[in-house]
């Protein structure tokens, strides 16, 4: 079974600071990778995804992520955060091989951005 680890549980930043949230997964086969965002009191929304091709993917609201296969990592970045980025961020993986399609989410990172 796969697992997803998000290293930062709580991150507090000031506006305009740069952001990097770590995500590592373990699985013996190929996976699709996702970052979702959950704003306070709302449902999860997709920020970006990686299926194949260019390992640097760009998502909505200025977010990007880089897939490093050798490190089993898919870290999320944003050069300059805004107060409105305050939210919970979830990394997720879904296998594409091995017959299992169970999506697995990390425990989430709570980001607070001070104005």
């Amino acid at each position, binding site marked *: 079974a796969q697992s997803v680890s998000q290293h930062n549980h709580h991150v507090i930043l000031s506006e305009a600071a740069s952001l990097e949230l770590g995500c590592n997964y373990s699985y013996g086969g190929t996976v699709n990778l996702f970052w979702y965002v959950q704003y306070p009191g709302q449902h999860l929304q997709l920020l970006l995804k990686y299926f194949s091709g260019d390992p640097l993917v760009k998502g909505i609201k200025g977010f990007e992520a880089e897939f490093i296969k050798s490190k089993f990592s898919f870290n999320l970045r944003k050069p300059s955060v805004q107060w409105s980025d305050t939210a919970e961020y979830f990394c997720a993986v879904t296998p*594409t091989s091995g017959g299992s399609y*169970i999506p697995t*989410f990390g425990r989430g990172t709570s980001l607070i951005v001070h104005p």
Partner: protein
Amino acid sequence: DTAVSQTPKYLVTQMGNDKSIKCEQNLGHDTMYWYKQDSKKFLKIMFSYNNKELIINETVPNRFSPKSPDKAHLNLHINSLELGDSAVYFCASSQTKNTEAFFGQGTRLTVV
């Protein structure tokens, strides 16, 4: 026009009761899911259906039973509710089994 809609949004009920949560998606997706999010925001998959066939059934008490009358609907019925069932339950859908999920607004279930 909401893509994934679930009802009710809030559900407060007593221990021992039976309740259902309904979910509908108008995206034409093949796969639907039920997730449970606990008070620490941890998101855990419970069930998944692909074209009305159950494909994921994680370690969930058998008091929880999903029903998919058609591809666009996935309902969750819970028997004999317990205090520990209190959580936010999210329905989601995806185009195929391993693509991105579109989530509903969630149902906050409180068992008293």
